């Protein structure tokens, strides 16, 4: 898998990981995301435009990045719980951009699309943070 990183600014600075190739392993994405979070990045957009296939390991690394950001943010647990109960909670720190049909099918099967916003347009995705 090839990973290119870029930065964009909306209300917050957003780190965008542009992925190219099948998302079938935790690495190298997890290490790069962990490095970004350790360096203070708080908002990550995963650009899946060029990811034809997402495996269960791909879901796992998305989950791990969610956890990294969630733990680092000190997100208000009570507010999060209220959002979950209301069915309105999505991560304010991790969002997804333009998954393929296959990718979206796997994300939906795992229920990830309920808790992670999925955008089709990069500008709108960055502005949504």
């Amino acid at each position, binding site marked *: 898998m090839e990973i290119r990183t870029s930065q964009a600014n909306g209300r917050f600075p957003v780190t965008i990981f542009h992925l190219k190739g099948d998302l*079938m392993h935790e690495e190298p994405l997890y290490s790069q995301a962990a490095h970004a979070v350790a360096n203070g990045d708080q908002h990550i957009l995963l650009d899946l435009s060029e990811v034809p296939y997402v495996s269960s390991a791909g879901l796992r690394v998305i989950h791990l990045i969610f956890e990294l950001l969630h733990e680092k943010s000190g997100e208000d647990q009570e507010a*999060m719980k209220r959002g979950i109960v209301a069915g309105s909670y999505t991560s304010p720190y991790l969002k997804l951009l333009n998954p393929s049909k296959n990718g979206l099918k796997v994300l939906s*099967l795992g229920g990830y699309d309920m808790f992670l916003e999925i955008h089709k347009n990069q500008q709108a995705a960055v502005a949504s943070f």
Partner: protein
Amino acid sequence: MEQLYRLSQTTSLDAVAALRQPLQQLLITAGGDPEAVSDVLLALNEAIINSLHHGYQGQPGWLQIEIGRAGQSLVIQQYDKAPPFDPTAVPPPDTSLPLAVRPLGGMGVHMMRNFTDELHYQRTAEGCNRLTFIKHNVFT
């Protein structure tokens, strides 16, 4: 059953991705519906990774894959010689749980179940795990 493909060899995790594209092409050329083929290959991919990652603990291991056509159905049998493991006995994950409280893992078997119409397991007399995937209405 008309056999379309057979592989019997030692395989590593690194080699798994290379299997998918030629198999997809082969099955579509044989008249398979592209979306149904894609679904069943997603399931097969998870089974192969499961065998290599868990069964053979990340080391290369022997796998046999037989793909055939039975009427309109696509039938895939995958054999390994790893310790017994019955994925059909794994309880499904609760995908309604938020990621923040959801345990990691369990999605591979979930994908195997949901991207096929039938999933069967047998421990053979020869000491192999045999998984059978069936997807109906692949060939019209």
